[in-house]
């Protein structure tokens, strides 16, 4: 029957999509590799030069394989990534993977929170603007979308902090939790809020949520702007659709036309593009973390950049690339589940 044929092709679609991860990954890794090589200077002397005698520097270079030809370094790099080895930092001699494990939870908390805020704000506002196109509400929402998208993150962050500090002086404006929470909660998952829940330490959960508000709003507003514009354009497009007019011809009330026909169908391209915004979100997360002193991967990346610790930077950027590829895979699968036509 047709429905079983449909799920069969869904499985095939997902398989093909997973295989496609390989070339995508390869391209991204190559870009990361090459970008870090064009940076002038030798990473080892840039990072720890002057502090160590030349003989040890040469030894370190050899240990990192920097004395080998470029293609060999490249192959070695790929080989390591395949085995999930992102290298060891030069400056503080830590496996990059453990940096990610220790800091990733905070970044995850921040990005998930930001995405939730962006969806809660962006979807209804974009839909409203699209449905009542060129109305006053549309104009206001569009300006809001453009401003939130175009405003520099640190500027929004600083404004928020200034506002909150003036009106609610006791509200936390930096860090992920108060020292007490961090101290009390035992580590299980490396995601502080989850660990706090596991420990049944609810005042800690509440404390973390309070800390989340400002950074999540800051990063969330950036994504909100993107979502508003996307949803608006796609709702307008969908409302012009032939099947929307056909629904009206069958007497479907306008509210339902917008909800069941225009909005739902508009979400299909929106899902795809939101998936593409992961890179934007991650770069936004880096800026948000530094603005709010958030102990995540982004803050670590900036610190290593200042240290000119090139293996650390390469490892973290590689990790970000892997995340981007995996999320885009998940988004495509989600898309196929939502839209039966994609499966072909």
């Amino acid at each position, binding site marked *: *029957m*047709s*429905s079983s044929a*449909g799920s069969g092709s869904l499985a095939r679609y997902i398989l093909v999509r997973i295989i496609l991860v390989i070339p995508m990954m390869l391209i991204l890794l190559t870009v990361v590799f090459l970008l870090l090589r064009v940076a002038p200077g030798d990473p080892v002397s840039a990072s720890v030069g002057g502090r160590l005698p030349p003989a040890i520097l040469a030894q370190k270079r050899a240990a990192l394989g920097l004395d080998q030809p470029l293609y060999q370094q490249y192959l070695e790099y790929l080989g390591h990534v395949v085995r999930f080895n992102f290298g060891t930092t030069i400056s503080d001699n830590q496996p990059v993977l453990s940096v990610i494990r220790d800091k990733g939870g905070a970044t995850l908390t921040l990005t998930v929170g930001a995405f939730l805020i962006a969806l809660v704000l962006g979807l209804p506002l974009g839909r409203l603007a699209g449905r009542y196109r060129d109305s006053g509400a549309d104009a206001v929402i569009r300006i809001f979308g453009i401003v939130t998208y175009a405003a520099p993150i640190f500027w929004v962050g600083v404004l928020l902090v200034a506002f909150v500090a003036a009106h609610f002086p006791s509200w936390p404006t930096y860090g992920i939790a108060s020292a007490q929470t961090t101290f009390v909660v035992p580590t299980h998952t490396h995601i502080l809020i989850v660990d706090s829940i596991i420990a049944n330490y609810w005042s800690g959960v509440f404390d973390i949520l309070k800390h989340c508000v400002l950074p999540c709003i800051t990063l969330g507003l950036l994504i909100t702007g993107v979502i508003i514009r996307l949803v608006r354009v796609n709702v307008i497009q969908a409302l012009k*659709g*032939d*099947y929307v*007019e*056909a*629904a*009206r*011809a*069958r*007497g*479907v*009330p306008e509210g*339902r036309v917008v909800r*069941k*026909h225009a909005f*739902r*169908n508009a979400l*299909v391209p929106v899902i795809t593009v939101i998936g593409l915004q992961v890179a934007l979100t991650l770069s936004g997360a880096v800026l948000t973390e530094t603005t709010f002193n958030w102990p995540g991967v982004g803050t670590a990346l900036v610190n290593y950049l200042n240290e000119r610790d090139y293996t650390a930077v390469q490892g973290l950027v590689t990790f970000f690339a892997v995340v981007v590829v995996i999320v885009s895979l998940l988004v495509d699968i989600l898309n196929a589940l*939502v*839209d*039966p*036509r994609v499966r*072909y």
Partner: protein
Amino acid sequence: MTELRDVGAPVIEGPVLEARDFRVWYATDRGPVRAVDGVSFSLRRGEILGLVGESGCGKSTLGRGLIGLLPDGSSRDGELEFEGRDMLALPGREQRALRGSDLGMIFQEPLTRLNPLMRISGHFEETLRIHRPELSKEEVEQQALAILRLMGIPPTRYHAYPHEFSGGMRQRLMIALALVLRPAFVVADEPTTALDVLVEAQIIRILHDLRTEFETALLLITHNLGIIAEACDRVAVMYAGEIVEIGDAKAVFSHPKHPYTRELLRSTISLSTTGLNYIDGAPPDLVEPPSGCHFHPRCPDAMQICAARHPVDRDHGDGHRAACWATDLAEGLTLDESDRAPLEREEIAVADEA
């Protein structure tokens, strides 16, 4: 199919639909486009009226205007009566409630008219639930399957998605959706233009058989005069927003009263189903249509009076109506010598500029 029949429906005498001096405008930057410019006709229960005319003459606008499916920025005027109701005075919400249950529309492009994310069952459930909220889920499915069977769609496909059907099947799905509540009036806007010839014949047969099964009055818009001859009781010929001739399909085709109809028939003697741009010249601009008879700049029979005065819509017997000075003259109307003088090419050009 007796379970589909609306038992309590009152028997309404007289026409199902009646339009008098019906007009539709589109507001544009250049001024109003008079896409339907004073059209009068009526439809009996179960009757099929064909509507032909060149591209852009206002056929779709008329069809949509009749069921109130016009875009923002357009307006309707004149009189439009449906089953005794004054449609132009009816609040938007009540008009909406009539669409889908009493008024239906079948479109040209069946491929894009079904929501790709919605199963066929979803389309039927939505339509039936909106108009008949009292129906149970089983009754909804029963009614949907009954009409699908009638259209030759097997019940096993009820839960399939639109993209799993061919173009011809999708058009039959659209017809089933439009007819599931047995509307009294349906507009079919070039329902077969996008389909191949074999499928076309099949769809036309289905539409033709509607009257026996459903007593639905149908306005069938088409470019294909063969379809009119085959499926329609009457035919209306439209030019520049007006119905220039209307009558029994056989009578109109064998003895056309209007020069435009005559030219149209001559231009499609071949069995071509494509566009109709074979008549000399192009259809006029509907923002500023020509003075007098809209057809005079292209009419081989045009006289002086044609550029000056709009011809009168006259009944030539048996409801065969046409609006043409030359026909009136041939049937005994007396016109002044100066009015009767043929319109020269130069004068046509001048009149066109005026």
